[in-house]
Each structure stands twice: as C-alpha cells, then as structure tokens.
C-alpha cells in the first residue's frame, strides 16, 4: 500500500496539468467565463412575462364623451399606447394581422346611450392570440382598467352599491419577491442552469479530447491509477463551475441588485454538491463516447431535457405525474429549487435537506459509476 501523500501528490500534479490545459488558451478562457455571464444578462433582460407597452388601436364608432373618457383611462394607464384610430372592420383586421396592434378595442355606436340608460354597454376587446400568453395578460389589463372605470362611473353617478353587496379589496402579499419580478426568479435559477451545461460539457470533452488525440493512452501508461486520473479530470471542472457560478452571482447582485438573503456558505456548499453531480455526469458521458463530437452531442442531448424539466420554464407541479417522477433524477431541479430558496428566501440547511440529499446521491452514484467505468473500460 502506497502512502496517501503520494496519491495526493499525483492528484495535485494531474489537476495542475489539467487546469493548465483548460486555461492556457486565451480563447478558451474567454469562452468559459464570458458566455455564462453574457447569458445571465440576456436572460435577465429578455425573460419577462411583464408587459409594459401594449400597442393598441381603437375602433370607436360612438365617438361620445363617455367613450373618450374610457379611452383616456387606457391612455393614462402608462401601459397602453394608442397606435391608431381605426374607421372600419377591414382596417381592424389589418392592424391585428400585421401585428401593428396587440389589442383592438371596438366601441359600438350606442355605447353612451346604453350607458346612460343604465343598460350594460358592451365593448369588444380583440387580442392577437398568436402568443396566447401575452394576449391573456393584455386582456387582463384591459379588464382591470374597465373595472376602475366602472367604479368611477358608479361613484360619479351616485349609484352606490347596495348595502348587502360585498365591497372589499383583495390584498396580496408576495413573500420573498414583493413586486413579483420575473427577473428575481430567473437569474438565481440561471446559476444552476448555466453551470450545469458548461461543467458537463467541459468534463465530457476533456477526456474525449485526449482520447481523440491519442494522449489518453499515454496517460494510462503513467503510474497514475485510473481513479486518480478521474479525480484529476474532475477537479478543474469543479473549479471552473464554481467560478462561473460566482460570475452569475455577481451579475445578479451587482448589476440587477437582487437582494441575497441567505448564507453564502450554504449556497456554496449546495453548489459544490450540484457541481460534483454534474461532473459525475460529464465523466460518465466521456466514458461512453469515442470522440469529442459524441461527447458534445450526448451532453446536449441530456442537458436540454434537464433544462426543460427543471421547473424553470414551467412549474414541475403542473407536469403529468409520470414526468414529475422522471424529474427526480434531474440534478438541475434540485439545484434551482435550492438556489432560489437560499438566495431569495434565506432558507437554512434544515429546510434544504430535501434538495441536498438527492444531489448527494446523484453525485455519489455518477462519480462511483464513472470510477468503475474508468477502471474497467479504459484499461
């Protein structure tokens, strides 16, 4: 039995060599750090379901004081921008077809007459539902503004609501993200998401590259044991993964000013476990692929479903039961839940145990699986 110090020394030497191999190239250095940070910016700005400027057009066939009052409410909302006053149905069709207006509001000729007579006055709200999500949000805004108009109308015309009709307000409080900003949800999730892709890819490629170039055989005839080679390959990826995660974390805090309420120690402990799981997956992939291209394709093949089934795009709770069970093997699912809870909610280890033990399990299984593969397949 060799002394442990010798093993550690060998691992250290190999780690240094691998780290140099990864970082010696300037383009490689840039391509490892810039893309994740750049993506954090893009996602931070682009990934939003909040509508700020709704282009709308009006087909006002009434042209009365009341219809003008209603439209003034829309114009004054700060959300709706009137792009045109239309005169005919065909024009309406054209504005929606060509996406010049997201919403068209049609007010019938008898609008004011019906309003004054106490009958319900209809307005038609036509939304371009090619993107049904946006259409639903915009329609919701119109409804809210019309509600406000109705309340004002009641107040102005003295038709107070009868005493037994409920008069109330719904007061919503959102924990951890008081203004419900999509960005606050998105960017902490990106830490796991982007780190996963890059770590798996880097690990899978580093072994595949040596194989493709034939240097892996040289490595095998050295006194290094397969497990030591594996650890040497894993360490640089862990390091790069942690640096990338830190980069995104800095963007979140320094640029987007998303308040961090948890503990950095907990966050990094969890991230380390997640990155170990990712590295394990990368090593497994590299053990089964013959060349860099296969390693890359396999990575992509695995990471894409992981990303889509992580709960970031659509909540896991709304997926079919069978798919929900499938997501249990997805490390990203736990990482995203974990980072959100530490970052936004300040949760401690006790609450996070549900995310941590699966990550630990995945890391153990993949790393020991990779060690086995290294010993048996590569010799």
């Amino acid at each position, binding site marked *: 039995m060799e002394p442990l110090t010798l093993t550690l020394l060998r691992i250290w030497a190999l780690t240094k060599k691998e780290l140099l191999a990864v970082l010696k190239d300037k383009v490689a250095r840039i391509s490892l750090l810039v893309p994740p940070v750049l993506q954090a910016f*893009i996602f931070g700005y682009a990934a939003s*379901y909040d509508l700020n400027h709704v282009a709308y057009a009006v087909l006002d066939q009434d042209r009365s004081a009341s219809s003008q009052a209603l439209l003034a409410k829309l114009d004054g909302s700060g959300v709706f921008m009137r792009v045109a006053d239309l005169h005919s149905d065909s024009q309406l069709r054209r504005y929606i077809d060509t996406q010049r207006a997201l919403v068209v509001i049609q007010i019938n000729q008898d609008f004011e007459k019906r309003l004054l007579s106490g009958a319900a006055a209809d307005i038609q709200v036509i939304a371009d539902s090619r993107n049904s999500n946006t259409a639903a949000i915009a329609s919701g805004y119109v409804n809210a503004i019309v509600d406000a108009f109705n309340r004002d109308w009641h107040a102005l015309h003295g038709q107070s609501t009868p005493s037994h009709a409920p008069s*109330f307000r719904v007061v919503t409080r959102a924990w951890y993200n008081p203004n419900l900003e999509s960005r606050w949800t998105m960017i902490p999730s990106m830490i796991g998401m982007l780190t996963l892709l890059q770590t798996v890819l880097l690990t899978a490629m580093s072994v595949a590259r040596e194989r493709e170039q034939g240097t892996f055989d040289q490595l095998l005839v050295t006194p290094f044991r397969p497990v030591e080679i594996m650890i040497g390959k894993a360490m640089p990826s862990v390091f790069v993964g942690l640096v990338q995660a830190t980069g995104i974390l800095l963007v979140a805090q320094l640029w987007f000013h998303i308040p961090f309420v948890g503990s950095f120690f907990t966050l990094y402990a969890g991230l380390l476990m997640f990155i170990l799981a990712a590295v394990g997956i990368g090593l497994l992939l590299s053990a089964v692929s013959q060349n860099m291209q296969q390693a890359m*394709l396999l990575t992509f093949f695995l990471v894409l479903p992981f990303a889509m089934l992580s709960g970031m795009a659509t909540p896991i709770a709304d997926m079919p039961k069978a798919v929900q069970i499938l997501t249990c093997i997805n490390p990203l699912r736990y990482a995203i839940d974990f980072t959100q809870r530490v970052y936004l909610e300040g949760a401690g280890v006790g609450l996070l145990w549900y995310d941590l033990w699966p990550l630990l399990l995945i890391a153990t299984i993949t790393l020991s699986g990779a060690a086995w593969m290294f010993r048996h397949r590569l010799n």
Partner: protein
Amino acid sequence: MNSAANEVATTTWRANANRVRALVVKETRQLIRDPSSLALGIALPLVLILLFGYALSLDVKNVPLAIVLEDSSPQAAELVGSFQLSPYFQTSVLQSMAQAQQLMQDRQVAGVVRLRSDFTRTLLQGDGEIQVLVNGSDANRARIIQGYVQGAVGAWSARQQAEGQDAVPPPVVVQSRAWFNESSNSSYFLVPGLIVLVMTTVGALLTAMVMAREWERGTIEALFVTPVRSGEILLGKIIPYFGLGMIGLALCVLAAKFLFQVPLRGSLWLLIACSMIYVLVSVGTGLLISSATRNQLIASQIALISSFIPAIMLSGFLYDIRSMPTAVQVVTYLFPGRYYVTLLQTLFLNGDVWAVILPNAGVLLLMMCMVLIASIAVTRKRLE
C-alpha cells in the same frame, strides 16, 4: 465553333454537378454512419416533440392553497366554497395563520388566503379585506395564482350581488375575443417554438460541430487539394444538413397536426419555403462559426450563444418581444429567430398574410445570402 464552346460549357457544368453530387453522397454517408449526428438530427426532434407535447404545460391547475378561516359567518363560508369549487385549487381549510405559514415554508401549499375574524363586519362597512399570500420565488406562478384567487373571489362577489334585490349591473362589460387561438390552447403557442428549436439545433449547432471537427483533424484541407472548388465543398456540406433539417421540419409538422392538433391556416408550401430559408441561414451560420474558430469546443460554445440561446430567448416564442426593454428589442432584429417565429405564428394560426410574410421572409433571405457569402469568403481565406 459556337457549338464546340457550348459543348465545353456543358461538360464543365456536368463535371461540376458530378463533383457536387459525389461530395453530397460522401457527406451524407458520413452523416448516416455517425450515429451521434443522426441522433441529434432525428432523435432530438422526437424528444423535443414529446417534451413539448406531454411535459411542458403553461396551464397552472390544482394549486395547493391554504385558507385560514378566522371568521365563522355564512359569507365567509360561502367564499371558502367558491375556492373549493374552483378547478384551479386544492384547498385545505386551517384555523391558524402560523400553521399556514409553516405549510408555505415547507412548500406544502403555494398560496394562503386569510379571512380575518372581522372580515364580515368590515365587509358590511364597505371595507372588507381578503389577504392573499403567495410565494414570489417563482414570480410567474405566483402571478397566475394571484389571478386565479381574484377570479374565485370575483365569482363569489357576483353571486352575492345576484342574491341582492336591486343588483346594479356593471356599466361597461368587456367582451374579450382572442383571435387565432380562441380557447388559448398553449400548444398553439408552443409549436412554433418547437420548430425553431429543432431547425436551429440541426442547422447551426450540428453543422458547426461537424465542420469544426474536420478543421481540427485537417480533413477539410485534404478536400481542398482535390480539384473540387471551395464553393462546391461548402455546397456538398450544406445539402445533407439541409436535408436533415427538412426531416426535422416534417416530424414537427406531423406532430403539430396529429399530436397537438394545431391548425395550419396558411399554405403548407409557404411554410416549407420559409423553413428552407431559415435552415439555410442556420446551416450557413454553423459553417461560418466553424470556419472562423476551427475548434470544436469553441465552435459549439459560440453556436450555443449566437444561435441557440437567441432562438429560445430573443425570438419571441416564449418571451414576447413586446415586453422586453427597447434596447433588447433592437437586438432581437439581429437574429433570424425573430423573423422565423413571426412567420411560423402567422402561417400556422393566421393564414397567408402577405403583409407579414413578405418583409419577414425578405429579411431572412437577405440574411441567408449574407451568411452564405460570408462563410464561403471565410473558408477561402482560412485556406490561403
């Protein structure tokens, strides 16, 4: 004399065509023999179709909701009933707020509705308050839940009003119509995204990786010492990947029709024509990236950043461009995904609207020419 010149021209043309054909056959064989490229070209579209069809859902339902009922009046009980009847919620009625907060913290419930003990009294005074607590960590879901709560409360309020004698109808009633997707079916909205993802993956990512590998191994230089011209070599590369992209399109269109039941209101031929242009833009981008980097790892990174991520994030299929800040909106014009998503959404859900199709397809066509010319130029320059 004239006919001899013609003959020479014809034979050169034939020789050219033969060379390109031979190259296409070679590249196609190479593609088919490498199981991993075929996997990306055909299996990945299938996986994406299944994921989009069965796993992704934008419809929030069965939200676990805790109702803290501190008031025992019939009105409050009726309001609770309104939540219990709603198909969107799975309610559990609790007595204490502390208990509900604990459930929130443990993620057992996604929202809490609280009716305080003075709810009915303040309600009759015209100042009732219904407290709602949601978890903002998932902002989007929280907002949807908030909307559903408001809906359930609205239904209760309407019932209460209807029970009163001299109910006052609201002065203005909104009749909403969602054109092109009356029932707000979310697969109508996912299908264009699915097609863009598949076409971009096959076009840009696969091409970039395969070509970068040839550069790394030097096999492309070997090709260039043959009498084949550089344009012909690129053509030989483009055609097989173009074919693979078209297979991906066919899979997606079939899935759209039979799996998702999304109507194709425009013409199929226009859809195919626009998709051909987009695939060529993608394949051209892939070639350009690989010739410029000549390194598999960097080529795949750049392909991800410059084509794949923008196709998801900046194309308007998932996140509407109209809700982005102006600076980001300007950036979206630089990427082909935006035009293609507009074309797909219009062709599938709206019809042959030339006023939309001509400008968008025109820009794509322009991008295609620019990318292809640039990739030929860069490849030539790299070899000199």
